[in-house]
């Protein structure tokens, strides 16, 4: 059961984020929810690479093979993921700022120019 826990946690975080995005009335909040959705991927990635009793995969003070380490690949992936997420969040917040400046609203439900 313990092995499934990170997966369940990640799934729950994704659902929370989805709920927030569907009902959001403020674009900054929407972008925040998107960041929550992204955080679920960190949990999932790190959960996938966890080894019971493992330590950090840094071999400056431990000899390779002397004790179990957690999977370094997923940590690299999570790091890349952070970079990607920072880019996207920054871009989205910049667009939101611009929208507020030009049009005085950040309510996604007030944007009705495109339909049909």
């Amino acid at each position, binding site marked *: 059961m313990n092995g499934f826990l990170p997966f369940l946690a990640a799934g729950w975080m994704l659902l929370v984020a989805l709920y927030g995005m569907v009902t*959001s009335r403020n674009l900054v909040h929407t972008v925040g929810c998107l960041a929550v959705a992204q955080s679920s991927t960190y949990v999932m*990635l790190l959960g996938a690479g966890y080894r019971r009793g493992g330590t950090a995969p840094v071999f400056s003070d431990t000899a390779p093979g002397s004790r179990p380490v957690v999977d370094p690949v997923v940590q690299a992936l999570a790091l890349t993921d952070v970079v990607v997420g920072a880019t*996207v969040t920054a*871009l989205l917040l910049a667009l939101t700022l611009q929208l507020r400046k030009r049009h005085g609203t950040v309510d996604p439900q007030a944007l009705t*120019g*495109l*339909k049909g």
Partner: protein
Amino acid sequence: MQASALLPLAVAVPLLGAALLAVIGRRLPRVGCDVLATATAGATVCCLVLLLGAGGTGRATAHLGGWPADIGIVLVADPVGAGLALLAAVLVLAVIVYSWRYFDEPSGQHAGVFPALILLFEAGMTGFALTGDLFNAFVFFELMGTAAYALTGHHVEDRRPLHGALTFAIVNSLAAYCSLLGIAMLYARTGQLNLALAGRSLATGHGGVPVTVAFVLISTALLVKAAVVPFHFWLPDAHAVAPTPVCMLMSGVMVELGVYGTARVYWTVFAGPGGVPPHAFRTVFTALGVITALVGAVMCWHQRHLKRLLAFSTISHVGLFVTGVALLTPAGVTGTALYVAGHGCAKAALFGLTGVLLDRYGSVDEYGLHGRARGLRLVGVLYAVGGLALAGLPPFGTGLGKAVAEEAAGTWQPWLPAVFVLVSAVTGAAVLRAAARVFLGAGPRPQPRPHEPETTGEGEEPEIRSPRRALPATMPTVSALLLLLSLLVGTAPGLAVALGRGGERFTDRQGYLAAVTGTAEPALRGAAEHTWTGSGIALGLLSAALACLLAAAAVRLRAPAGFSRVVASAVTPLRRLHSGLVGDYVAWLTVGVAALCAAFAALR
């Protein structure tokens, strides 16, 4: 040069060009930026042509940094992947030449940003088409996404581009994170990120729910990018507001990369034992494809905003591509590849011509432009030719691709060719109808329907500073050349043969695995010859004739009131679903993922 050296260059050259433009663009004169961007795009095209030449109809691989496949990242070029990268590079070159004099802005501090973003976009697309690694594909996917979001919101002064870009970015990024969850689940099961090795590792297991869920999650981002119903809502909004050159790229090749990604991931990872059973994939994706094609065609027919019209026509063609790929046969892949190449060129040309209208009249509204473009005779002729190409008129590449895919689909389900003919006829007819009204002033001026949910194409922010200057010669020229390319796809003798072998390679799991691990590739079975057949030509002519008839009827005839009411009561709810609200689109995405999971669970 060797293929293994050319492969990374296809990604590195545009990245380098983008970095250069971003850094020194503001110090260069306008001409300098144009020359640098064009040279970079040209070099990428040359690089990919050489790569296709060196690789022939086999596979070329590059192990980056010399690391083996289970540790490092492998780039793989087979005819379909490298061909799609080449299509992206050709369209980028066309777009850069097209926009030479299109924007007088941006200037000052931001000079060079637009071409730099286009090149970044190109790097993402070629990288995505050539990578053999799942996480690397995610990174390239996000690179191309981020560049596309920024380009869509290029006109930050206007409200609608901001709206369209936000919707596009939020929906696509959310889908990308779903995909990353799927990648993590797959990694947890297999311990591999390389496509081929993950597939080999899955084959030793027994499948089950986690594998199915992982496949659905990974597909989510690809289906959102491919704008498959119900993941398609962002696409018409983004296309309506993006600058025309960006639309040319998004509709011409970015959306198709989503279909390519789905097919690649399925074939290399999930097609074997322990994956997702082929009958389930075939059923689910054919259903998705047919629904997408029909919804796209209906929505396309009811648009008056020309860019939205073309955007829905893209959705509808994507439905046909998904159907072609879902057949899981080499012929289906070959037909789809030809169709994508022909469609990409023709659709980019049509967007380019719409850009001419926007440049001249500051509007892309079919009703508002009624009869106003009588003076642009050449553009009108090209527009009509583009409409016919979209309808699949032989000998355009769209016609050949449609014929091959149709034949492959007909051998499995005899009714599928009817969908191909109907959908290409309706989308072609919508373009022809618009051309007849705008360039000939044919028929009575349509009355606006203020009570209906629709987006007009009027009051567009002009994409240029001074509307009184002469039309840049590159705009119609590039569009004409793209139409010629679409014609060449259908008539060049070697292309169909090469893509025929490409289809065999694409569907050959063992060969892909062997190429990635560096063992000897098994010999290729004799590839079937795909060329024009009598029935293919007949069906192509049929759909083109149907398109002409439909367009003429729409322009000339008045539908009886009862008929219009029935159609409106059926279509208006569908149009209301396209609400432009990002919350609704996220809800549809969730519904789509849940429905896919349920469908695969039911068919296991």
